[in-house]
Each structure stands twice: as structure tokens, then as C-alpha cells.
């Protein structure tokens, strides 16, 4: 009895724990990286000297805080996807980060230290225009929110609404800006395009309109970036058509005219066709802004100007300067310039500067400014940043640093400066530079890059895993087989030499092991660099090639998550579609591996190819073919050219085929095999699926590859539209041809490699009439193998197609729940042709079995595990919206699960049918490492049959290994080598001794 109980306990313990991760295994085989996306707003926490926080708001609807010393995340809040969670603005004051989200719907205040929510206010929906912090008597107390027709004021401390006022004439006047200088007035600026400006002053205490006036401005079109308030409430606007600056004091009672100051009178010239940008600064929201401001006159031309006594005068001219920024440290405001290293900043207005400095200002505040000067011509290799005093335009001593930005990262887009006062009262600063490729780089004053974050990885579009190359010695041995035989003696010598090299490498390896063993554990660090990359014994370490939406490619080491190479494609349109293909794997030494990225513009359909080496990220010297027509379809053939690269066929909209590589050898092969090269096209707008075949060239022109239409299936788009078409993965292996049933007969699987699963959704979305259609179509013959309709179902559909099964998930509109359905195809108990599968010769339709289950959660994405030989049982990896990744055994999704368990079904290990699919927490392969907004899961086989490598990507990237059938081919970590070997030796010696004894005994007996 007790024995049985122990056995049972042991069994449950094993079953429960083996699939989960032990505490000491956390982070051993997996890693996670968290990202935030492209930064829209950034603020430095500058309230204390030792502050090391950065508050960010990004285009991925995220508010986050970064450690400015290391670049790590302190906290991160992920809001809803899409316009609902879009962050309109981020204001920062003291400890509070005030965020406006969802087009003026939600006003939230976050505590910046720990990321806790201070308060949240739900406002009326309305088009958000602007929000500012407002204050009275030198203290910031309010948040003013301007919408299309409403101005509201909220307390900064608790979010409560102080007052709300509707704006007059909001149907004609576009209110675009709000301004406060710490006084009792709050100004709202409205525009009637090409007519006049409307200025309304509200009392900050009760919201009463104190004054309202309109000023004729026939040139005005918008306020943002064109107008700003400087000095003691003087509105400044710049206009490109009249080439003038306009000034208007806001405080004056009488309806004054806008004072025009032509740019020419200031000796300034606007770059042709450039819209000038005005940049003002208000260091403290409760005080008036500075009298100095920047005017951008061209893409690389900035001018610092000053308003004093009603006169505008230039302080300093910066050309070339791409980005400028003001920063305040205590009472000082500074500005910095980043200029190309070997070109000095032209100081044209230097002479003027000294004269125009206002003595009062000089005395009262020392304002400085920061200008970032950059130049394309110098390839961004080295640029320098300098600090300038804001009120004199003079350069501050010892503030120039040389900055080395990644030359590959594109232009710098935004600059955030944090200036602080050093002990000796001089100004020090830190810089946050955002590049065109979404890289965030944090720099400290000696020109040192403190950290950089690759935020492009927050939006991975597609990825592949590539085997690492062999080590030099392995490659040497491999190379021996590749070479042509040149005589027996030479071959023997070659073999001997390579064996010697192997021996040498082995001894070196042993020596290294011995040497490392003496050192303490912590010192032995295997730094992964691009030079030390080599395949490990079981091929568990691979190169992850990731393609991001911004057009930046990354090579990431799968073991550690280190970015080993990156490559930014400059000319990628933002709405491009990517397809990554591995044309040549690492297996063909000495030919380098080769990946091809197909970049297709969504609108024009025009495509380009980027061919590169996936291990080093270098662009290949192979020139891809120019594609002059939109590409409809691409397919990678198993056919290889002489250099072992697989042939890629691209079909354009005239159904002409371009081959890459297109050597004569390849074209000849293609002509020979033309009648067996088929492909299909899907036009979901017309519901048309059509099959094509390569046509043999009649005349002997090899280059002209044309196609012919061979089949057509049209699913009327008026009833249902095609939402997904999925074939099987080409790299998939299926080990067993059939399933052994309880009565010892074999049920053969229908393993059609050309099978396509086509899923449609009904156009009618009424819950009773909506349906999801599933079609299994042979991609060669166009034969519809199976047609099923899931009634009362709706999308989104997630689909996995592998082996002889299709699993899809849908929303049951009637029962309001998510459901899984599995289809399995069997040929029956006899195979039609067991040696080879041909779509052209399978006259009998397979048996189709189907079963459905209730799934207690919605899902984000789904993928099946993949192993080297396909012996290991399969699991489904399901990404849940909660951030968990569930490893669901395929055993639970088996249409042969019986209603009632019988002797035979038990023999076959079939689980009795239960309508609900369980979610067990130990099935979460990422334990507490949630992957936010998981978008895709990639699986790759490793050298171990039991192990499958998994990468989940979305906002975060998570890599791990899964063992669907447990680690049957690996000894456990705590395997007792000592016990086993001592028992072995013990037995050996016991045998020896007993043998000796027996001999003695025999001898003695013989003597007797």
C-alpha cells in the first residue's frame, strides 16, 4: 500500500515538475529583453543632483522610466494598442509625470520613482490640441488641457478639475496653443487660417474670460512650431511666404497690430522651400519664458535670436547644425552645438553678439543654450557638441566634446539635453540622442557613450535562425570532403595533417579547460564576440537574424541575447513588407552563408532585394537582379546552383519569373525541371486562388521564364473573404508515417507537403449567420481536399499547419468564447504509394477527422514546436495576451480522443474527450518573464532531438528552449557520475578478486 502511494506521489511529482523550470535554472537557458519603442517625449529627472531617471513616452503607447546610468528599465507601463492608448503628450514636474492618452481621453499622473499611479481622470472625448503645466506665484499647481472646443484646468496634486470653459466660436477658430507665464492669466491661441489670430485670456482662478481679441494675420496657417512666446509674453510667429517674423505683446489691452520684422533686415536667409521652425524655451512653467529663441532656417541652419526692448537681434548663427536644444541647470540655461569635427562653427554674428547682450539679463540670469551641429558629409563619424551661453551666444569653456555616433544609424532625429551645475559652478551636461533607426544613445561629457538601446527591436517583423559556422578545425575537416581527389598519397597526407590539427585543437581545448578550472568561477566569462562565434556540440547556439519595421536588421546571439551586428537599411519605406529567406546555410564551407531579404513596398508593390551574410551582417557582393515590376510571389526552390545557394524565383505581375541567382547552370536546370515547378497566387480581394507552372521555353532562349495558368479556384468575396493561407514549413521532418492503433493496425497519415490551409471569414458578421470556412487545397493541382464551415464563428483566426494536422482558433460568437479546432488527415489503413508522394497521383481523398475544444483564454499567436528529426512529440506554443507563452501538448488536440475510454484507446494513450482545454501554470515556458504584446513565435530545431529553440517576439524578445518529450537524450544536471563510476570500478575489482580467488581455489582443489 505504502509502496503504491510513494510510487504515485513520485509519479505526480515528476509529471508536475519536469515540464516546469527549477529555481536554479531561471535565466540559464533563457533570456528576455524589454523594449519601449520609438521615443516621442523624454524628460530628465533633474530635481536633484544624483537623479538618474529618464521619463519616456513612446509611439508604442508606453510610459517608461529608464536608469540613465545603465539604460535599464526602472518601470514600464504598456497601454492599449492603437489610437485608444496613443500618448498625446507627456509633462514632467518634480516627481510627477503627467500623461495625456487616447486623444485627450485620459489624464494620468505617474509617480516617477516607482511608477505608481497618482491619479487618473477620464475626460470627455474630443480632439486634443495641447496641454501645459501652469502655475502661479512661482509654483506649478495646474495642468491646462486644450481641446478643440474646451479648455480645462486640473490640479496637479490630485487631478481634480478646477474649472472647465467652452471656447467661443470653436467651429470657425482652430484653437491650437495654450500659454501661461505664471501670472493670473492663461492665454489660448486660436487660428482662422489665412485670416486672423484669436487670443483669449482666461483668469486662472475661476476661468473667466478676461479679454478676447482677434488680430488680422492673413499669412497664418498653424501655430505649432511656427509661433512661440518669448520674454514677457510676446508672441512671435514666423512665416515662410512673407519671409518675416511677427511680434505681438499678449498682455497689452488695446488690439494692437502684429509688428512685422522681415528676415532680410536681420541678415537672415531662408533655405528655399523650407518651412522655418521656431524654438522657444520656458525653463519654469511658473515663470516667463526666455527672451532668446532659435529659428531654424534650413535643414542644417539654426540661428539664435534675442528679443530685447522690442527689438529682435541675432546672437549667433550656426551652420551646419542639425539639432538644437535648450537646457536649464539651476538658474542657468545653456545650449549646445554638435558640429563636424574638422569644421569650426561659423560665428557670423559674433560681432553683433557682444553689443546686443542685455545688461540686465546678464546680471540676472546667465542663459546658455545647446546646439547640436551635425554634418552628413562627414559621415557622422565624429561630430562635436559644445555648450553656448544662451544670453551671449558665447561658447562655454571645456564643454566641447567629440561624439562618435554609429555611422550606420542614419541621421540623429532628436536631442534631449540634461544640464547641471558642477561644484565649481560650471555647467556639465548629458545628452540623449535619438537616431533615425530608433537607437537611443546616452552620452556623458567626456564624449563617452554610456549606453545605447536598440529600440527598433520593439517592432520585429520577421526573423530566422541560422546555424553558426564551424570552427577552423572543423571546417578544415569538412573541407577535405569538398575537395576533388588528387591522388592517393596526397589524400592520405591531407587526412593525416587534418587529424594532427584536430589533435592539436583537442589538446589546446584540454589545456584551456584545465587552466580555467583553476580560476574562480566568476572570472571565467565567455564573452561572445563576432570572432569567437562557433557552433557548439549540439548546435544549441544559433544566430538570430531579426528584421524590424524601421528597416534595421540585427544579428543576435541566441545564447546570450547580445546584438552582434546591426545594419540599417536607409531607403526602406515605413509601410514595407519583409520576407526573409536563407538561401545558403552554413553547411557549405567555404561558401559563406547567405540570406536574402525581400523588401516590398505595400503601395507600389515594387520590391528590392538585400543580400547579406547572416553571421556577420555584411552586405554580399552578389548583385541581386533589378526588379522593375511589382512582385506578386516569391518562392525558394530546393534546387541549388553550383555555389550551393538555393534558387529564388520571383513572379511579377505579368507572371514573368526572375531567378536569383541566374547563372546559366541554374537556368538550364530550371528549364529541365520546368514542368515540375508549380506555384500558387492568392488574390484575397477577388477570392481567387490560382495555380501556375513554369513553362518550358520553346525556342532556346534560356533567360525568358514564363508561366502558364493551370488551375483556378474562386471563393466569392461577396460571401466570405480569405483571411489566411498557410502551407507547411519546408524544413519540417515527420518521423513516423502512421499511427499504431489499439488493435495493432496502422493508420497512415496523409502527408501532403503541398497542402494549403485556406481560412475564410464570412462577410456577414451577425452572430447567428457568421461563419469561418476552412479549405484544404492542394497547391499543385488546386484540388479541394476538404471543405468545412464552422458556424457561428468569427475571427481573429490563428492557424498552425503541420504534419497531417491543422489547428485553428476562432471566436465563437454565440457562446462568446474562444475555441480550438483540430483537423487531422489520414490516408486510411493502407498507403496508396508508400515510397513517394505526388500530388498528381493521389486519386483518393483522405479521411478527415475533426474535434473542437473550448479554450479559456484568447490568444495572440500560435506556433508548433519543431525538432531535428520529428521523433519528439509536438507541442503548440500559444502566446497569450497576458504575456505568458503556453506550451500545449498536441496530445490534447487530437480528434481521435474518444468519448468513452475503451481498452484500445487506453492502449493508444488517447486522453478521453473533455470539451474544455486546461491551462496549467506549469505549462508556461516563460514562468514570470512575461512577453508583452507577443506578435510572433519562431521555432527552430537544435542538434538535440529533444530540444527545440523558441524565440517569442513582440514588444519584448524572449528566447528559451523547450523539451516537448522531456530531455530523453540528455543526462540530467545532477547526474551522479561518482556513484555510477564507483559502482562500476567496484564491480570490476570485485570480479578481478573473485576471479583470482576462484583460480586459487581451483588450484588447491587440483592439488588435493
Amino acid at each position, binding site marked *: 500500500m505504502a509502496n503504491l502511494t510513494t510510487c504515485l506521489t513520485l509519479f505526480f511529482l515528476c509529471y508536475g515538475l519536469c515540464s516546469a523550470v527549477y529555481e536554479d535554472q531561471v535565466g540559464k537557458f533563457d533570456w528576455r529583453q524589454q523594449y519601449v519603442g520609438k521615443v516621442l517625449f523624454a524628460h530628465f529627472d533633474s530635481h536633484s543632483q544624483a537623479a538618474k531617471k529618464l521619463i519616456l513616452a513612446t509611439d508604442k503607447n508606453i510610459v517608461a522610466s529608464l536608469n540613465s546610468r545603465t539604460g535599464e528599465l526602472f518601470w514600464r507601463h504598456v497601454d492599449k494598442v492603437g489610437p485608444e492608448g496613443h500618448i498625446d503628450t507627456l509633462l514632467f514636474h518634480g516627481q510627477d509625470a503627467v500623461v495625456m492618452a487616447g486623444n485627450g481621453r485620459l489624464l494620468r499622473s505617474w509617480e516617477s520613482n516607482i511608477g505608481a499611479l497618482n491619479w487618473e481622470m477620464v475626460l470627455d472625448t474630443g480632439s486634443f490640441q495641447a496641454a501645459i503645466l501652469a502655475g502661479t506665484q512661482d509654483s506649478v499647481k495646474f495642468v491646462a488641457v486644450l481641446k478643440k472646443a474646451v479648455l480645462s484646468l486640473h490640479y496637479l496634486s490630485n487631478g481634480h478639475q478646477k474649472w472647465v470653459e467652452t471656447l467661443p466660436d470653436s467651429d470657425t477658430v482652430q484653437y491650437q496653443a495654450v500659454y501661461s507665464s505664471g501670472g493670473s492669466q492663461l492665454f489660448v491661441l486660436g487660428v482662422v487660417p489665412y485670416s486672423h489670430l484669436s487670443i483669449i485670456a482666461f483668469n486662472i482662478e475661476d476661468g473667466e474670460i478676461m479679454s478676447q481679441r482677434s488680430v488680422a494675420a492673413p499669412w497664418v496657417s498653424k501655430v505649432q512650431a511656427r509661433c512661440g512666446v518669448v520674454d514677457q509674453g510676446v508672441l512671435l510667429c514666423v512665416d515662410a511666404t512673407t519671409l518675416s517674423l511677427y511680434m505681438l505683446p499678449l498682455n497689452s489691452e488695446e488690439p494692437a497690430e502684429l509688428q512685422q520684422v522681415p528676415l532680410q533686415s536681420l541678415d537672415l536667409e531662408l533655405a528655399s522651400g523650407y518651412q522655418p521652425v521656431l524654438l522657444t524655451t520656458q525653463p519654469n512653467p511658473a515663470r516667463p519664458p526666455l527672451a532668446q529663441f532659435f529659428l531654424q532656417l534650413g535643414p542644417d541652419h539654426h540661428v539664435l535670436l534675442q528679443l530685447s526692448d522690442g527689438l529682435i537681434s541675432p546672437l549667433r548663427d550656426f551652420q551646419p547644425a542639425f539639432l538644437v536644444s535648450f537646457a536649464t541647470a539651476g538658474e542657468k540655461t545653456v545650449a549646445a552645438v554638435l558640429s563636424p569635427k574638422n569644421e569650426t562653427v561659423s560665428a557670423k554674428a559674433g560681432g553683433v553678439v557682444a553689443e546686443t547682450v542685455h545688461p540686465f539679463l546678464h546680471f540676472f540670469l546667465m542663459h546658455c543654450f545647446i546646439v547640436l551641429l551635425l554634418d552628413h558629409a562627414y559621415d557622422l563619424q565624429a561630430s562635436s557638441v559644445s555648450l553656448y551661453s544662451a544670453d551671449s551666444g558665447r561658447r562655454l569653456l571645456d564643454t566641447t566634446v567629440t561624439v562618435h555616433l554609429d555611422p550606420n544609424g542614419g541621421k540623429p532625429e532628436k536631442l534631449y539635453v540634461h544640464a547641471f551645475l558642477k561644484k565649481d559652478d560650471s555647467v556639465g551636461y548629458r545628452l540623449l540622442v535619438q537616431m533615425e533607426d530608433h537607437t537611443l544613445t546616452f552620452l556623458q561629457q567626456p564624449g563617452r557613450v554610456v549606453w545605447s538601446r536598440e529600440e527598433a527591436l520593439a517592432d520585429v517583423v520577421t526573423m530566422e535562425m541560422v546555424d553558426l559556422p564551424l570552427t577552423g578545425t572543423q571546417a578544415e575537416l569538412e573541407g577535405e570532403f569538398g575537395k576533388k581527389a588528387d591522388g592517393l598519397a596526397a589524400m592520405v597526407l591531407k587526412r593525416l595533417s587534418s587529424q594532427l590539427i584536430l589533435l592539436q585543437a583537442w589538446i589546446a581545448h584540454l589545456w584551456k579547460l584545465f587552466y580555467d578550472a583553476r580560476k574562480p568561477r566568476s572570472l571565467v566569462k565567455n564573452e561572445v564576440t563576432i570572432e569567437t562565434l562557433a557552433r557548439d556540440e549540439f548546435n544549441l547556439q544559433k544566430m538570430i537574424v531579426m528584421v524590424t519595421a524601421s528597416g534595421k536588421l540585427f544579428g543576435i546571439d541566441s545564447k546570450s541575447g547580445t546584438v552582434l551586428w546591426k545594419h540599417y537599411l536607409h531607403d526602406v519605406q515605413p509601410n514595407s513588407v519583409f520576407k526573409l529567406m536563407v538561401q545558403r546555410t552554413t553547411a557549405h564551407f567555404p561558401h559563406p552563408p547567405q540570406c536574402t531579404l525581400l523588401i516590398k513596398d505595400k503601395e507600389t508593390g515594387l520590391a528590392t532585394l538585400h543580400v547579406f551574410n547572416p553571421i556577420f551582417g555584411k552586405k554580399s557582393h552578389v548583385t541581386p537582379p533589378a526588379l522593375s515590376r511589382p512582385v506578386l510571389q516569391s518562392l525558394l526552390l530546393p534546387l541549388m546552383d553550383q555555389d550551393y545557394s538555393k534558387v529564388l524565383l520571383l513572379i511579377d505581375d505579368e507572371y514573368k519569373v526572375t531567378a536569383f541567382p541566374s547563372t546559366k547552370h541554374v537556368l538550364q536546370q530550371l528549364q529541365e525541371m520546368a*514542368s515540375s515547378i508549380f506555384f500558387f497566387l492568392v488574390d484575397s480581394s477577388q477570392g481567387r486562388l490560382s495555380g501556375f507552372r513554369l*513553362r518550358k521555353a*520553346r525556342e532556346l532562349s534560356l533567360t525568358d521564364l514564363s508561366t*502558364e*495558368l*493551370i*488551375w*483556378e*479556384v*474562386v*471563393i*466569392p468575396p461577396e*460571401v*466570405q473573404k480569405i483571411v489566411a493561407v498557410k502551407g507547411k514549413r519546408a524544413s519540417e521532418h515527420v518521423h513516423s508515417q502512421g499511427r499504431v492503433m489499439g488493435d495493432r493496425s496502422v493508420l497512415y497519415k496523409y502527408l501532403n507537403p503541398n497542402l494549403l490551409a485556406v481560412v475564410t471569414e464570412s462577410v456577414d458578421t451577425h452572430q447567428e449567420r457568421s*461563419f469561418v*470556412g*476552412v479549405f484544404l*487545397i492542394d497547391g499543385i*493541382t*488546386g*484540388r*479541394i481536399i*476538404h*471543405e*468545412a*464551415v*464552422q*458556424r457561428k464563428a468569427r475571427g481573429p483566426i490563428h492557424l498552425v499547419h503541420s504534419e497531417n494536422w491543422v489547428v485553428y482558433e476562432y471566436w*465563437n460568437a454565440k457562446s462568446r468564447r474562444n*475555441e480550438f*479546432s483540430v483537423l487531422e488527415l489520414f490516408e486510411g489503413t493502407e498507403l496508396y504509394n508508400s515510397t513517394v508522394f505526388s500530388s*498528381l*497521383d*493521389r*486519386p483518393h481523398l483522405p479521411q478527415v477527422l*475533426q*474535434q*473542437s*475544444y*473550448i479554450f479559456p483564454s484568447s490568444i495572440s499567436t500560435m506556433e508548433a514546436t519543431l525538432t531535428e528529426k520529428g521523433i519528439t512529440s509536438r507541442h503548440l506554443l500559444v502566446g497569450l495576451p497576458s504575456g505568458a507563452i503556453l506550451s500545449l501538448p498536441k496530445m490534447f488536440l487530437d480528434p481521435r480522443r474518444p*468519448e*468513452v475510454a475503451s481498452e484500445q484507446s487506453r492502449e493508444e494513450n488517447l486522453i478521453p*474527450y*473533455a*470539451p*474544455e482545454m486546461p491551462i496549467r501554470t506549469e505549462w508556461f515556458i516563460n514562468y514570470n518573464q512575461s512577453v508583452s504584446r507577443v506578435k510572433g513565435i519562431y521555432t527552430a530545431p537544435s542538434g538535440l532531438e529533444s530540444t527545440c529553440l523558441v524565440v517569442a517576439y513582440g514588444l519584448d524578445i524572449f528566447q528559451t528552449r523547450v523539451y516537448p518529450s522531456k530531455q530523453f537524450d540528455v543526462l540530467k544536471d545532477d547526474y551522479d557520475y561518482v556513484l555510477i563510476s564507483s559502482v562500476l570500478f567496484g564491480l570490476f575489482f570485485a570480479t578481478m578478486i573473485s576471479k583470482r580467488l576462484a583460480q586459487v581455489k581451483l588450484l588447491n582443489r587440483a592439488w588435493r
Partner: protein
Amino acid sequence: MLTAAVFLIHAQPGNYNTAKRTADGPDAEVTGLTVPLEHSFELDDVPRFHLRGSLQLRGREPAVSLWQSPLTEEERALLKEVAAVDGLYRVRVPRVSLQTERPVDRQPEGYLTAFVRACSLVESHLSDVITLHTDVTGYLIGISIVTVPGMCWGAEVEDDVDLESFNTTLNVMAPVNAPGPETAQFIERMEQEMEKKGKNPQEQKSFFAKYWYLILGGAVFLMATSSAQPPAGGGREQS
């Protein structure tokens, strides 16, 4: 000379039964819609379709019958030539609705095509299976053709006897209803099991209820032995 092999099939999801054979001419019962079935086999593989037969659709249930004419002398010769160069034999039907009861609101726009290797058609002696696929509304979405057997062995075929007339099986395939989760049956089964358990109270007893006397006895025995043991004696005995 008009001989025709007509198969009448009622669409039954998942179960395609070959129906009775009627030897009627095309004019036997012309009600409903007649749809042409065209085929093409050319040496240069450029499709030039011409009439092979016609499909007659009638009744509420999509019932289809096929009438087709035998191949002419030239066609037979051509088919054999096409088979020799491994050409394709294509068929096509216009896109129509099989439900003739409904008013035909859409004019046939375009065709649905399928193909089979000409050699396999020749070697199977023109015995083929044509399947018409419809969507939920009964609209034709695809056609497929296979020959039985489907292989090309390169066998010689006596043209006069074997290639004269088609031996066609015609199927209509409509989508089947995919099963949903079967909760009702499961609950029924659970209830049955519960009932079974309820009938057999012996089974329902818990572990303690079943073996209380053993556990109690064991506990009493343990207590008795531990209290009876002199505290010092135990150490002695072990040493």
C-alpha cells in the same frame, strides 16, 4: 451517335455515394440550368477549350447530371500525342450557382479550371472522377479532376476501344459543418458516472473511511511501542 454515361449524385457532406446510372440523352429531362463542361489538350500547351459535355443542374438539392459526347478520331489521336509529350489535359466550367431554385442574379463571370496529366487520362482509359465544389450558398468555387489510377506507367493503349467514351464519376462536394465542442454529451457522461458512483457507495468512500481501522490500529501500536520503550534502553540496544 450519342451515348452518354450519366451519373446522378446528391450532395451529401462527407459521403459521396455513386448513384444510379441512367442512359438518357441530353434531351431527356431538360429542366433547370445547363452548364457546359469544356476541355482542352493541345500540343503547344496553350489552352483552347472546346465542349466536352454539359452539366444539368436541377432540383432544390444540388443534383447534377453529366452528359458528354465521345471523343472523335482526331481528338483521340491528339490526346495520345499530348500524352506522349507529357502535356496537360484541362477542364473548365463557368462560375455558376448550383442551386437552380434561386434566381440567378450573377452572370457567370470567369471560369474554374483544373487539370490532370494527359498520360494518366489515357492510361486510365478515360476513367476520371470530376468533383464540383460549392460554397455554403451553393455557388461553384472549384472543380477538380483525377483519374483512377493516377499513375503514368507508359503503358500502350488500344485507342479504338479504350479511348472512345469517358467513364466519368461526378461528385458534388459542399462544405461539411465542423463540429463544435461537445459539451452536452460530456455533461451527460459525467452525470452517468456520478450516478454510477452513487449506486456503488463502496467506491465512493474516501481513503480514511476505508482504512480507518488500519490507521487507528497502526497508531495505537506505534504509541504503545514508543511509550513501552524505556528511554535509555533504546540507545543501549543500538550501540
